[in-house]
């Protein structure tokens, strides 16, 4: 590998603000549109997570960035250069696959050194790089082994190492942790994060697991049906979801949604549905003739004795004890809502309880399921 002299790099950085930029990327098959008009700017060293349910197009988008699939429209810029018509190896990105895609007939050492060898690296240079990456990922003892002799976690690290050794503009990771068991997954998650802090490389990470997304991302891109639902930091996506899909997809257990309408005159607005709640003046503009959806996160609802003032009443249907918390399903006026309480309160099934919905924790979505802003 050769190096860019620092002054050139600085000059480049001044004019190329984004490591990867997508402009209107579309992917259409004969009957189905997998991606619609995806536009995104990804900053250098950023850890961006593409989050969404299966089939939402996130893996396809990743492959389009890598050049493994063609887009039907739009442009992809990598390091400022148009990449649409560059072959994958010319795009200077590295990918970590869900199934690792290690070469079964090569040793770990050969696997790791392969990308450098292909670019004409000299034997001693390659050996040195392989040694340092192996040290970084704690694979030094496995170098002479074959992929089938390694554990899942080790294979994953080899896949990672193969990407790291290329020193690309960006890492593209396609659900790399989903083939690991739960415990290993949590462990690898933090390893990946630590690695990212050290190496500081732009990363685009695809997952359907919102916990993974929230813990790792600098920014999250929520996708559904090939359309970007929201782009924002973990906090933004969590506390200011752009629509009901994002609201229910992020956060576990799901946000409670109530259908209803806004009633009353200006100054004395109320939401009425299964629950009836006043809407304070922080809601600047509310639609009055159409239906709206109210959302409250389970952790924001307060569980109180049934006769508390300003509290709605409901019956407990189910209590799920998850150790540190209880998830209490409460039936309220025909609808169910879930409440998270940390104390092992005496909420028993069949009991009548009171629920209070703090005004600051309310989310409202209009008839198109889009977020209604509050000040």
């Amino acid at each position, binding site marked *: 590998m050769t190096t860019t002299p620092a002054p050139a790099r600085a000059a480049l950085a001044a004019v190329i603000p984004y490591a990867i930029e997508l402009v209107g990327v579309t992917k259409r098959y004969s009957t189905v549109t997998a991606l619609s008009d995806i536009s995104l700017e990804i900053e250098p060293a950023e850890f961006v997570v593409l989050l969404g349910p299966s089939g939402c197009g996130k893996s396809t988008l990743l*492959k389009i960035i*890598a*050049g*493994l699939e063609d887009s039907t429209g739009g442009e992809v810029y990598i390091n400022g250069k148009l990449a649409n018509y560059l*072959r*994958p*190896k010319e795009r200077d*990105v*590295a*990918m970590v*696959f*869900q*199934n690792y*895609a*290690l*070469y*079964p*007939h090569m040793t770990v050492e050969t696997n790791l050194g*392969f*990308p450098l060898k*292909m*670019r004409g690296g000299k034997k001693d240079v390659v050996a040195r790089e392989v040694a340092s990456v192996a040290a970084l990922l704690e694979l030094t003892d496995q170098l002479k082994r074959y992929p089938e002799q390694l554990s899942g976690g080790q294979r994953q690290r080899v896949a990672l190492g*193969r990407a790291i050794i*290329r020193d690309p503009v960006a890492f593209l990771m396609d659900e790399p942790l989903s083939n690991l068991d739960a415990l290993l997954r949590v462990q690898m998650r933090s390893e990946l994060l630590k690695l990212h802090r050290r190496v500081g490389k732009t990363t685009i990470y695809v997952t359907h697991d919102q916990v993974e997304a929230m813990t790792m991302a600098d920014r999250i891109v929520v996708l559904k049906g090939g359309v970007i639902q929201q782009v924002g930091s973990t906090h933004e996506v969590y506390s200011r979801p752009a629509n009901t899909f994002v609201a229910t997809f992020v956060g576990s257990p799901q946000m409670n949604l109530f259908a209803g309408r806004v009633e009353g005159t200006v100054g004395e607005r109320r939401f009425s549905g299964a629950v009836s709640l006043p809407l304070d003046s922080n809601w600047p503009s509310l639609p009055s003739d159409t239906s709206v959806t109210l959302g409250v996160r389970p952790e924001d609802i307060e569980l109180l004795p049934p006769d508390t003032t300003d509290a709605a009443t409901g019956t407990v249907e189910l209590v799920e004890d998850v150790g540190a918390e209880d998830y209490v399903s409460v039936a309220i006026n025909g609808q169910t809502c879930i409440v998270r309480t940390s104390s092992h309160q005496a909420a028993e099934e069949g009991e009548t309880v009171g629920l209070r919905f703090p005004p600051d924790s309310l989310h409202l979505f209009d008839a198109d399921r889009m977020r209604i802003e509050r000040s």
Partner: protein
Amino acid sequence: MFHSMGPGRWSPAERATAYVLLIALSLVLIVPFYFVVATSLRNSTALFEYPPKLIPDPLYFGNFERLLFHSEFPHWMLNTLFVATTVAALKVFIDSLAGYAFAKIDFRGRNGLFILMIAMLMVPFGAILIPLYKIARDLGITNTYLALILPPLANPLGIFLMRQFIVGLPKDLENAARLDGVSEFGIYWRIILPLVKPGLVVLAVIVFTEQYVSFLWPLVSVSDKSLTVMTVGVAGMRSFGGTNYGLWSAAAVMALVPITLLFFPLQRQFLARSISGALKQ
């Protein structure tokens, strides 16, 4: 003990009958070989003895001596082995190349061409003998080794076989290779080929055997004595050699030696695997 591979229980009587039938059948199938070997070891007078001795006594090796040292047979055999090996090697290479392209590269006309090749599988060789001969003549390759080597490369079966093997390889493997900077040919050569070795072996054996037993085309396409292959040579012995039964039988025996040597180590794998593979359910 449950010996049978088949379902259901068989009575001892039924099983005994099965063994008897199989032994009888095997005898019918194998006895001609024994007979030919025995004939090849008899001299001409001993041949017409009646009643004949089951095991030739004395053992006469003159037929083999004549065949191997005073006839063209070794030359024919060399020709056959040369052609069969060359065709097998070439076909393995070009069929795996094409198989890879059909399996993993999306190029224009791929599907149409594939269907065309499937259709041509059904064309019987006997039906295209005439135009094939004419083409070989026009190309000027008749009476050369090329006539023996090139036309057999046309059979699309090998392409299907290789494609089948290659399609099974995970797509992410080539994707990873593409990102790693490997050229398409490099992916074929470094990644795909090592992983389909069993398929290559199967194809090589099939092609080799096909060429080994090939008769009609060598008969028609080359007339030069030096290009005679084993099958044509042995068959020709009957036309020109009078009635030298001893020599012919020795030729028949020697003709079978290479193919037996090839098949014997493979047969355990080949026969046993196809059966036990199906057993694993």
